[in-house]
Structure formats: C-alpha cells, structure tokens
C-alpha cells in the first residue's frame, strides 16, 4: 500500500494532489526549484526537497533529481500531475526500474498515444472513429477524386511533403474537386518538388469534447462522461463544462463506449482522457488521448462525485475499481474557468508579479483550486495559471449564474488576470445558449474584451481613496516621530480612558 507520495509538480495541481493524499492518510512530498521555495505546495507538503534552479529543464524536468528526491524521502510512489513529466514515457519506465510506483500509465500506452500516426492506426484497429482521410500519399488525380467522394465534402487537401499552408486547398463543392486537387498538386510540386497529397475530412467549426476514462490493472475500464472544452483561445482551453450542452444521451453512451475501447486498445491503467472533435450533427472523431490527469478534471468530479486523484492512487495500489459503469451517473451541471495572470486588454500578455490583496470566493457550489496567497510573487518561469474555479449547480443556468457570482467575489490585486475576460464569456449570448464551437472566442472577440472605463463617480471615489490613504500615512508618520515605541502608546491610550495617566 502506498504510504508516501512525491508530487513531481508545482502550483495548484501539486496542492490538489496533496489534498487527496491528506484525506487518504498518505504523506506527501513536495519538490521545488529555486523560484519556488515560498510556493504554497512546499508549505502544504509534509516534506520538501530542493531539485534545482528555476528553469524547469534544470529542475521539474530533470528525471534524476526527481528520482533522487523520491529515494531520499522514501516515497513509494510519484504523482506527476499534468505537464512537466506527466506524459514522459522514459520517466514512467525509470520509476518502474527504480521500484517506485508511477501514478500513471505504462510507457507503452504513453508512447502509442503520444505518436499521432500510431495512435490513429491503433484507434482504427479498435473501431474508434478517426477523422476520415488517406493514410498514404496520393499522386493520381483520379484516385484523389474517388477518395474525396468516399470521404464526402468538405475536405482539406494537404501537400504530403509540406507545411505552412503551401499546397493546401479546402474543397466545399463538388464542381471544385478536380481543379482544387490539380492546383494543390502543382503548388506542392513547385514548393516541395513533390506533388503527392493527403486528403482529410474538413470539420467545420468543430466542438472539442472529451471523455474521462478510468481503468484498473485488472482489465476494468469505465468512462465518467464528457467534458465540453470548446471555449479555447489559441488551442488553449479557457472554460470547460459538463454535461456538454449539445450532447444527447444516445451519442454520450456511444462515445463513452468508444472512449473505453480506445483506452483498452493500449491496455490503459489509471485516469486518462480521450479527446474528440465533434461537428454540429454530433459526428465525432478521435483527436488524441491525454495519458494523465487534466486541468479540467474537477468538473467531472463535481457531477459524478468521484475523486479522480483518490481513484488514481487506488489503481496504482493495484486495487480494483470500486464501481462499474452502471453505478456512475451525472448529477447537475459543472463549469470550470482557468484564471491566468495575464492581461486580456494587452493581447493576453503574461503578468507575473506580486499578489497584493486576495479574497477568494466562497459559499455554496464553489470549488476553488489555487495556490496563490497575499504577498506571493508569481514567478515568470512557469505557466501563468493561478487557479481554476469550479462551480456546480442543479442546472446549467444556475451554474452560469453561480460562476458569475464567483468571479465577482474573486478579488485580486497586484497582477492583471483573465477574470474580467471570463466574466464576459459568461455573459456572451452564444455561451448562454450553449451554442458555441472552438470558434467561439475568435467569433466573439469584440464582445469579450473587457470594457473597464470607469465613470466620473467611480474615478472620484478612487481619487478620494488614494488621497485619504496618503493623508492617513502622512499623519501616522508624524505620530511615529512624536512617540517612541508602541508600548508607550498603549499605556497612553489606557491612561486617556481613565482621564489620568496612572501607570
């Protein structure tokens, strides 16, 4: 049985894992770089080991240093969190070699799913739908036309040798097929000296929907339903929710089965995520598998009641899953937002710096997974995510209202954050209607930009605030010069109350 876990990560995910460790009665070990001595994950852990300078390739990514800390601390197991070494097959193998339990999948599963081509072939073999298209390069125009007709329009023609948009053609109408293939081929020839092309189904403004799966070492595998992750900026998820507002029970069951089949195809162990791209008609295609815990896992926890980290630890312990597929259900609706130290008004530029004041939202239905505290200096070496906020309510409308309230209650000064932007997302009609795709942010950019222009009265009160504080401080400074030491003041005040100074 695992008694001590080293968490090979930092920030909010390290703390999130340690919280489950505490609940499970397991000791937790933090590792930290030079930039992280004061990070909350170091303060929260039972033990802490220094593993190198601030840049992650000299600390959090150095397998030897992590293994050494694990050995020194006597940890039975390592939880990699997400990012860093979490999808590193070598690290998984190395742990095994060193007799330390890696809380994650085998190197085989990581490698197979890590390589797009291999993953695609493996999924096809397991009858999991993939984006229709050719797997070998085509040179013959006639063959290309036949394949396009089989796949169905629209399609994307891509130069097989290429990149950067050269030799790429989107075909929407049948009449354009031959001319487009010809054009792509000649463009490819000119650019790369090779006129071979690939053809792939083009998914128009897709949805990004993923399924959480969980498998034990005994061949049992379940899914924990979907997460809708279409609110993305530059392929970075910003808001996630479950259930997906476009999902039907029929498609959910079917996709869930395919997700389980995908995991089983690589003998998966532990928690993982199967990502699909989905069109407006709920046709879905395997995109990739994330062989680790996701940032957005809490929304699944909120609607299913399952603590995914605890389940990861149980699986790593060799225990059988304590529930079957039919024991699982979704209750209510959950939304997560990722709060970044970044400036939405300045092209989302990262905004490291010191947190001056922090008030975290509390109350019904809110889960806040963060790691910052008042006075904390957000280092510039790592991801600028400072917390993820999850709300739960009985229905989607209630969850959106609750998220708005939570974002309003979240007060943080000293660094710029994405909070104003996230409020705008909650207010956007496309989001409220649940009718959005991965194009959502791009399409709504004009209404998502915070409009923070204060009115005259607000500015007046701000001016008054600064002025009064300035005067108060001036006054205090004068008083400090007049009286020496707080001890005297105390007795003076006490004396005043009595009318005479007695002591």
């Amino acid at each position, binding site marked *: 049985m695992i008694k001590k876990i080293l968490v090979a990560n930092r920030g909010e995910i390290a703390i999130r894992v340690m919280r489950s460790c505490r609940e499970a009665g397991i000791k937790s070990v933090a590792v930290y770089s030079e930039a992280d001595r004061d990070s909350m994950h170091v303060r929260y852990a039972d033990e802490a080991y220094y593993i190198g300078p601030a840049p992650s390739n000299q600390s959090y990514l150095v397998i030897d240093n992590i293994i050494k800390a694990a050995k020194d601390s006597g940890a039975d197991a390592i939880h990699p969190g997400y990012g860093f070494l979490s999808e590193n097959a070598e690290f998984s193998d190395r742990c095994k070699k060193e007799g330390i339990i890696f809380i994650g999948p085998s190197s085989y599963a990581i490698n197979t799913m890590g390589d797009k081509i291999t993953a695609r072939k493996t999924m096809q073999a397991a009858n999991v739908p993939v984006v229709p298209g050719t797997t070998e390069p085509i040179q013959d125009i006639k063959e290309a036309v036949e394949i396009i007709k089989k796949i169905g329009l629209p399609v994307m023609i891509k130069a097989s040798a290429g990149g950067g948009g050269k030799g790429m053609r989107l075909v929407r109408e049948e009449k354009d097929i031959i001319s487009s293939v010809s054009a792509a081929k000649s463009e490819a020839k000119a650019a790369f000296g090779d006129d071979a092309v690939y053809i792939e189904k083009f998914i128009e403004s897709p949805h990004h929907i993923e399924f959480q799966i969980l498998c034990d070492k005994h061949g049992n595998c379940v899914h924990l339903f979907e997460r809708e992750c279409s609110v993305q900026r530059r392929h970075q998820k910003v808001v996630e929710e479950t259930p997906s507002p476009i999902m039907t029970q029929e498609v959910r069951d079917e996709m869930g089965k395919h997700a389980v089949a995908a995991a089983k195809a690589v003998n998966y162990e532990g928690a993982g995520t199967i990502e699909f791209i989905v069109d407006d008609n709920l046709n879905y295609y395997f995109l990739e598998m994330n062989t680790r815990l996701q940032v957005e896992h809490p929304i699944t926890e909120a609607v299913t009641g399952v603590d995914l980290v605890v389940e990861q630890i149980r699986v790593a312990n060799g225990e059988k899953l304590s529930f079957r597929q039919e024991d699982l259900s979704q209750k209510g609706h959950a939304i997560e937002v990722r709060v970044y*130290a970044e400036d939405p008004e300045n092209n989302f*530029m*990262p*905004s*490291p*710096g010191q947190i*001056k*004041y922090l008030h975290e939202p509390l109350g019904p239905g809110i889960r806040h997974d963060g790691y910052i505290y008042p006075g904390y200096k957000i280092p*510039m*070496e*790592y*991801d*600028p995510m400072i917390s993820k906020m999850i709300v739960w309510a009985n229905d989607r409308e209630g969850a959106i209202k609750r998220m708005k309230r939570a974002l*309003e209650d979240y*007060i943080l*000064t*000293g660094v710029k954050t994405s*909070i*104003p932007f996230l*409020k705008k997302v909650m207010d956007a009609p496309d989001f409220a209607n649940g009718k959005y795709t991965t194009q959502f942010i791009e399409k709504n950019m004009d209404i998502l930009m*915070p409009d*923070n222009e*204060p009115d*005259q009265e*607000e*500015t*007046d*009160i*701000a*001016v*008054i*605030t*600064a*002025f*009064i*504080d*300035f*005067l*108060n*401080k001036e006054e205090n400074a004068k008083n400090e010069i007049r009286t020496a030491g707080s001890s005297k003041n105390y007795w003076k005040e006490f004396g005043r109350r009595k009318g005479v100074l007695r002591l």
Partner: protein
Amino acid sequence: MYEVNYKDNDYKVEILSRNGNKITISVDDRVYDIDVTEPESGIFSILYNNKSVQYSFFPEKDDRKKYKVYHGDKEWNLEIIDPQRRYRKSRKGDDGDDSNYISTPMPGKVVKILVKEGDKVPAGSTVIIISAMKMESEYKVTSDRVVKEVLVKEGDNIDGDQPLIIFE
C-alpha cells in the same frame, strides 16, 4: 491644496470636514459625504448615499505618492500632487523623463540586447527583447535616439518599470 492626477486630468481634492470616519470631501466641484473605514490593510469600505463599495489600493514601493486603486474590474494609476511636486512638474514640462529610458511594465528576463552605448538607433527599431512566462516581447524606440547607457545585460532578471536602456 492637493491635486490627484489620473490620465490627463489633475483633480483638485479638498477635505471639507472630517469627524472620525465620516468625511465630507470635494473632488473638483463635486462634493461627497462618505463614511470610510479600512477593515483590512489596503481595503477601504466606503458608504455613500447608502451605497456600499470596496476600493483596494496600494502605494508603489518606490514612490509613496503613486497609487494603484482597484474597484471591480476597474483600475486606476493615480499620483498625489502636492504643491512642491506641482512646482517641480511645471518646471520640467510634461513627460520629460519618461522618454529618456526603456522599461517594461512587468518583471521578466533580458533575452537579447540589440544595442550598445553610443549607438544611433533609428525610430521603430527593436533595442531589447524581454521574456516573461515563456512569451517574448520586443521593445522598440519610437523616435531616432542615441544610446547613452545600457543598465542590464542578457540573462538579467528585471523588475517591472526598471530603467533598462537610457538614451541621450
């Protein structure tokens, strides 16, 4: 008489009366009766016209007359101007200082310096590249300048608003 600067305006502020935390104060010709307390350090709870609002603030570490004030999603950069400072300001002319050096709005690391002392730099050219949180930003000069002094070197960690390169 104090003024508080915000963007292009200097607001005249005057306390008309004060009784504990109840203050009557004018901003230009607008008069406010407010009840203000500081329940937490750096937080004012303000009641006026029975409205309850919270303003957070902190003075900048290197100039106790410069304030950042926050309310909701709004943010103000303010500067207290006392008679002495107003005099200095009027002598120097507006913004005279700011354009003499390059600085960044946030802490980061110097990736590359493209100029050295004595260089003549044409308007629009990049002089320094700074990275913060995996993102690199180029800083350019907006007019033709001559480099007087380079205060940092590649690889240095820098604070926000720290002078990096000084021009003549």
